[in-house]
């Protein structure tokens, strides 16, 4: 196979144009600044920031994380500095980065989601919104927004009507039929889907007989969940027409390419940033090498190219 010289890594997520398909997963890259030492942020497709809420949140008490086989559980509890501080303290830095900035956000009520979306939409330098619907809904007994199709539809359409920015909906994987939830999100006006968020899990200390996380349960991420994530991306990509950002356990460019082949248009790197803080740049390089060695000129050709 001839080695390709002109490799086109550009992808488009709705109206949002990215220089390459590699983004960071929310909550695993802080607000970008901590990683500047390890990776040239300008090379990234996009930076997705830690989930934001209207007001700052303290999050859960420690311990908040525990390692599991090829994975980790986290129960950070969505600790964040709040949208106002984010705009004041973090956006000046992010605006200077030659990459896309995607603001991940959430709320306890539909109203909070809408207000957060409106506020973020008016900020110069934010290129898209990613709404996290794996959060408990105060109004319906703290059941996760993303597990009841009716509530899911309602909160997404409300947000849709309050922003003109590209709207990415991040689905909860803890459902019976993810492709149904994907269609609901598409119908409600999502421009793209992110999947997957963490699987709900738990670990117990057999010496103390106490849960290893203060919050009892937490979200499972890392390589352990990759097979579930790949399956969900594949199932959803057959059912919706909007692009999918694939994530869950990506630790190498091979993993990223696997997501693209299965149907993702872009990928996000999460837990792997903790292990190799420079991993995002290496994954971009690896995708380029793969394309070059296979004679593929545009990364778009890889997306959804699975042969079943």
């Amino acid at each position, binding site marked *: 196979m001839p080695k390709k010289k002109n490799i086109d890594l550009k992808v488009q997520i709705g109206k949002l144009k990215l220089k390459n398909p590699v983004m960071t997963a929310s909550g695993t890259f802080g607000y970008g600044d901590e990683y500047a030492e390890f990776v040239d942020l300008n090379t990234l497709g996009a930076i997705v920031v830690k989930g934001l809420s209207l007001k700052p949140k*303290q999050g859960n008490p*420690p311990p908040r994380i525990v390692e599991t086989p090829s994975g980790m559980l986290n129960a950070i509890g969505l600790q964040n500095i709040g949208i106002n501080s984010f705009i004041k303290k973090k956006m000046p830095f992010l605006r200077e980065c030659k990459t896309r900035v995607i603001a991940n956000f959430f709320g306890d009520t539909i109203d909070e989601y809408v207000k957060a979306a409106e506020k973020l939409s008016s900020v110069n330098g934010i290129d898209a919104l990613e709404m996290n619907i794996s959060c408990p809904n105060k109004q319906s007994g703290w059941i996760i927004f993303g597990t009841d199709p009716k509530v899911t539809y309602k909160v997404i359409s409300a947000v849709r009507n309050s922003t003109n920015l590209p709207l990415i909906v991040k689905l909860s994987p803890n459902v019976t039929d993810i492709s149904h939830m994907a269609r609901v999100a598409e119908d409600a006006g999502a421009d793209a889907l992110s999947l997957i968020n963490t699987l709900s899990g738990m670990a117990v200390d057999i010496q103390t007989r106490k849960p290893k996380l203060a919050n009892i349960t937490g979200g499972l991420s890392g390589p352990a969940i990759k097979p579930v994530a790949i399956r969900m991306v594949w199932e959803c990509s057959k059912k919706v027409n909007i692009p999918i950002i694939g994530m869950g356990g990506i630790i190498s460019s091979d993993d990223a390419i696997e997501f693209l082949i299965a149907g993702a248009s872009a990928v996000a790197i999460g837990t792997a940033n903790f292990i190799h803080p420079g991993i995002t740049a290496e994954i971009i390089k690896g995708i380029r090498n793969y394309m070059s060695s296979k004679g593929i000129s545009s990364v778009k050709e890889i997306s959804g190219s699975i042969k079943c």
Partner: protein
Amino acid sequence: MNRTFKASVVENKKLINNHYLITLNPAVKIRKPKPGNFFMVAVDTGLDPLLKRPFSVHRWIDGNFQLLYRVVGKGTKILSEKKPGNVLDILGPLGKGFPAPKKNRQVILVAGGLGVAPVFSMAENIKNRAPLLFYGTKTKKSLLLIDEFRSLGIDPTVSTDDGSFGTKGNIINVLKRYLTRNSLPVTRYVLYACGPEVMLHALSHLATEYKLKGYIAMEQNMACGIGTCLGCVVKTRKGHKRVCKEGPVFPIEEIVWD
């Protein structure tokens, strides 16, 4: 200087039951760590164990560094099996180290168990300040570095839980007795401590009671070591703070105990 680097094992020596001293040679020049700084060490290349493990810098010798560790779980078990020549992925130095003591202060070092690893590093740094050392362990056999402390000119005050060496009982009580017998004004002392949570907790009570100032090195499960996962927080009077970033060393009065 990049803080991600590879280092090869120079020596990995069993000191006593379950306790090892590993000497690592970085493949590139790295920043010199401060006492209280730590490194995140990938003990293996597979995906299990997945996360790097945090270890305090124990000594820095001509560009090599040493970690003193105890085998407690699968990561440290694997680390203990490493042989000279094996290469490890490392991140660091990380975190805020112990601040230098103000002039005229009498430094009191307090070490519990393996907390002695960073405390030794601090002792080495300020040996000319004639620090006092209060050092408690379970039993005589688990006492480490006594000769090394002496060669710094420090004569450790030791206690063991079982009384097999030094005073019987916990080291905070020993320190308390020392303070009650001494006439220096408390504002002249400054504490530097590392050890199990229960010891630090007791020390903080003592510090409150005697209005002592000082610094303690905290531990918490970590994923990233660089402040982004928010996994390693402890409760402080100013809200949650990250052990890897605002810590591991905190002013003693800042920590809120459950």
